[in-house]
């Protein structure tokens, strides 16, 4: 049927200014819209030139800087990992009074995602900085979980934000795989080998982290375990705040996770699960070397990796 070999249509339209709420439809229209299946919603959004930051076609220009705001490189960037609690953690970081988080800007800016084969120079760096408005005396940042598995982003980020601190939440890779694949399919991704491969790819944390460590010193990268954050959110959040140079702070409800999937995870046959553990074992061992305080006791499938260290 030629789906995947279709000649590409004309390039996606002109760059648009970031105005997410410029024209807000009435509530009944929005309610009707939400009732459509995910892919029908996507078609309608694309028809009006509205692309999500992670989609091809997204090419929004940076937001207009507000009164009293200044722009510059982000002070922190969360780079991973998808389905490891990053929305929850970003909200907690943003609740700190020393962090500037403009509500109209997305947590995931994806501003560097498309620069695989596109030129990237001073103009693009300046444009990138405009994605990070803040008021004087505050810090700001974002969290694009896919950056970790986009190896081309690491040097771009080092060029555009050389002093940024990087945040990484990691999760036991087989659990992350099941959660990630369930999530992608629920969002309308086709049930194809490419979708599965994407979910597999995101679990090789050490492989991708090593790429960033070529460009950022280890003392500016904080790796935390999702499982430990769930067990001790107050303690782990204090570590994040301290890493970002923020004073101690206690958010109103530190245990209120966001974006938690309520869908049943995809089943995994025993042989396939064992093969996935084998697939990730060397990477987990490598991660344990990179992150000395990684607690493999929290990842029972990889307990033998821990004992071999």
């Amino acid at each position, binding site marked *: 049927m030629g789906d995947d070999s279709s000649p590409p249509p004309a390039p996606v339209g002109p760059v648009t200014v970031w105005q997410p709420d410029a024209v807000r439809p009435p509530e009944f229209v929005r309610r009707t819209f939400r009732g459509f299946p995910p892919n029908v919603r996507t078609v309608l959004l694309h028809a009006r030139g509205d692309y999500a930051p992670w989609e*091809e076609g997204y090419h929004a220009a940076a937001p207009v800087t507000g009164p009293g705001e200044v722009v510059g490189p982000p002070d922190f960037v969360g780079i991973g990992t998808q389905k490891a609690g990053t929305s929850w953690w970003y909200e907690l970081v943003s609740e700190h009074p020393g962090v500037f988080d403009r509500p109209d800007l997305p947590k995931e800016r994806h501003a560097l995602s498309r620069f695989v084969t596109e030129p990237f120079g001073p103009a693009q760096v300046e444009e990138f900085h405009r994605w990070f408005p803040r008021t004087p005396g505050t810090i700001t940042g974002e969290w694009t979980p896919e950056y970790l598995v986009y190896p081309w982003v690491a040097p771009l980020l080092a060029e555009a934000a050389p002093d940024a601190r990087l945040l990484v939440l990691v999760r036991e890779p087989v659990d992350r795989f099941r959660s990630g694949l369930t999530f992608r399919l629920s969002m309308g991704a086709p049930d194809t080998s*490419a979708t599965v491969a994407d979910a597999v790819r995101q679990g090789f944390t050490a492989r991708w982290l090593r790429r960033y460590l070529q460009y950022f010193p280890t003392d500016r990268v904080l790796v935390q375990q999702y499982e430990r954050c769930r067990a001790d959110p107050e303690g782990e959040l204090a570590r994040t705040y301290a890493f970002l140079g923020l004073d101690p702070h206690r958010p109103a409800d530190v245990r209120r996770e966001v974006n938690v999937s309520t869908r049943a995870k995809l089943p995994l046959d025993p042989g396939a699960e064992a093969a996935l553990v084998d697939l990730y074992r060397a990477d987990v061992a490598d991660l344990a070397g990179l992150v000395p305080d990684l607690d493999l006791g929290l990842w029972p499938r990889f307990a033998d990796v821990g004992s071999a260290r």
Partner: protein
Amino acid sequence: MTALGRLYASLPGPLARAVPVELRYDLRARLEAWAPGDLGFVPDPPPAGPDETTGPPDFLVLGPVESGARWWLSHVADLAAVAPTRDPDGAAHVFDRGCTEDLDADGWARFDALFPRRPGRIVGHWSADGLSYPWIAPLLARAAPEARVLVLVRDPVDLVADRVAATSGTRAPHGGSNLADAVDRGFAGSQVARLREVFPPEAVRVLQYERCVADGAGALSATAAFLDVAAPTAAFLPRPADGVTPSAGALLDPTARARLRALYAADVDRLAGLVPDLDLDLWTTFAGPG
């Protein structure tokens, strides 16, 4: 497949492409008109002739789209001792589901049934994903443990540039993961290393696409020797490298080329360590002093 699915599958390309790209998978799923790569797709074994037997392939050709792997398999199939491949597009995708599901006896048998050949001839299978999707090579090794493995590699910067060019502008959702997929396919060094963990290293032969283009006759003779079949007797008849579009890499922005060169440099070094006869002078991006 439903009757409507058969109708949809028979639509000419332009009509099928009239369906918005965002809805094509849903439509295929609803009509059970599965395409290769969809996890619902189950390949139909070709009918075996009366004097043919089936069994696991004797050799595998691994290399992504744009690597020239399919093109090279078509040349290998010209050898007298090689049976024509009934799945020349590598569309079988038998092991795609193997990441989440255990194959039963029927699944393994279905793979074997894809490879009929007459006595005295060998047959091959091209897998575009067998290198870069890491769960597939171990399953291939289990299905065809005696197979010899040809790996087609190409200048990774050209490979990724062509792949990005081929898929850009399609407005496909999840474009970022498509880019990551394209970039990931260029890390041939780590892929070959992984392959040699599941196949004996002596059963794996790496071919450079560029060498096959520059000296097709020599590369085909070397391939025949590796497969332990008679050397070609007819003159090598070059034909266009089907599926390979050699222009995007040359048109790449110089700064982007330099970034991609840096991205792949360590992996290319690793590949060169594994493949002593790799000729980096054939790879524009990596030729000359590093």
